[in-house]
């Protein structure tokens, strides 16, 4: 099984691809709406593709498949994450922290927990709920391991965080976790919520 070392999803599918998806799944929503709501699907596809390689179809085909299997809502792209990971990977989805959510009053602590996990376990990829209002409204991105085996690249075509480096051992200078009020980072004041990885073995 070939695995990709390349980052999956660094370039967001074009509006044309979105339109093709829209038509293929016969969605009541427009292509633009699908594209604005598919971050959970996109991040999980990225994590799967990075981990499982060729076994995962291209994004448009992936959406069609999960839609046909009733694992995604065709109107608003709500994804049945855990079932999708179970179906497409050689493992299962584990959501961290086990306690529920990362500390919502302390952004730094949250990123430190993520950093410690990545430094110790070095998964090929994780998805990260980079912000959430506690009522289900939020944004999901993925972090994918670099060839150096230790640092990660942030995959988030919706923001300037896309393509930036995340170094579990240097959170101070990593774009996403930086505690600087850098207004280029749309998450500068948002604490991370949860993160998922694929635990091997069924």
């Amino acid at each position, binding site marked *: 099984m070939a695995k990709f070392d390349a980052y999956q999803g660094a370039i967001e599918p074009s509006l044309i691809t979105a339109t093709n998806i829209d038509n293929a799944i016969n969605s009541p929503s427009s292509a633009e709406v699908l594209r*604005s*709501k598919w*971050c959970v699907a996109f991040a999980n596809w990225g994590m799967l593709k990075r981990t499982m390689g060729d076994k995962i179809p291209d994004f448009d085909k992936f959406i069609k498949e999960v839609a046909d299997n009733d694992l995604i809502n065709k109107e*608003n792209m709500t994804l049945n994450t855990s079932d999708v990971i179970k179906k497409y990977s050689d493992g299962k989805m584990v959501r961290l922290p086990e306690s529920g959510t990362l500390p919502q009053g302390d952004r730094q602590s949250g990123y430190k927990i993520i950093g410690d996990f990545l430094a110790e376990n070095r998964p090929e990829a994780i998805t990260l709920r980079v912000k959430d209002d506690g009522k289900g409204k939020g944004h999901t991105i993925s972090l994918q391991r670099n060839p150096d085996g230790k640092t990660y690249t942030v995959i988030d075509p919706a923001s300037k965080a896309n393509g930036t480096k995340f170094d579990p051992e240097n959170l101070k200078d990593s774009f996403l976790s930086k*505690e*600087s*009020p850098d207004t280029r980072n749309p998450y500068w004041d948002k604490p991370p919520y949860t993160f998922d990885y694929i635990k091997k073995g069924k």
Partner: protein
Amino acid sequence: MAKYLESKNYVINGYGYKKNAHLESVDINEKTDYSDGDLIRICSQPNLTSLAFKRTKVRSFSADASFACSKSNIAELAVINLTINKNELCNLVSTFTNKQLTLALSGIVFTNSDLECISKLKLLKYIAIPDRANISEESFCNFSKQMPQLLGIQLNNSTLATNGLNCILNFPSLRRVTLQNWNSVSEDEMGEWVKKYEKKYNRKLEAQIIDPVGYER
């Protein structure tokens, strides 16, 4: 100095002080054991560029601290998730009137008088205004005419409508904007507005106007 500050629960450099590093940023938070005089010592650190007040009851400068901090190399001031009244906020930001500052505000009550106070910082470079800030169109439009050097603005979840948006055209030097989730302006309209700004000033504007949202079950 770093050891002293960490022993009093100041947060150094975001994720803690590493030996031989420069002391570049200091956070004062709810666990900090603050003493008068600390701020004067903090602001005297030559490599200090960033100061943040997070969830703390400490939210004003004494005259001496204000003087020391105005002479510092601080380029970023953050005030996050705390209760602060307009006089306290004005006192805090006015310390940096002569600085090319990034002012990042989040999770605080923010009103027209705060905007008015900030308009005195003529060298202000970047400002993040809190989500859902309670500011009027008139007040914001006045503000927009007084900040010739402002390079970037974040204004999310605003109740301002199209007129308020059009006042952002008055800032002559913007390079980036973050304008997400305005109640009365659609993302399409925002996109059109960005083009309007770019056309007016004949340069590209880095714009974060989309707020992607995804759900799962």
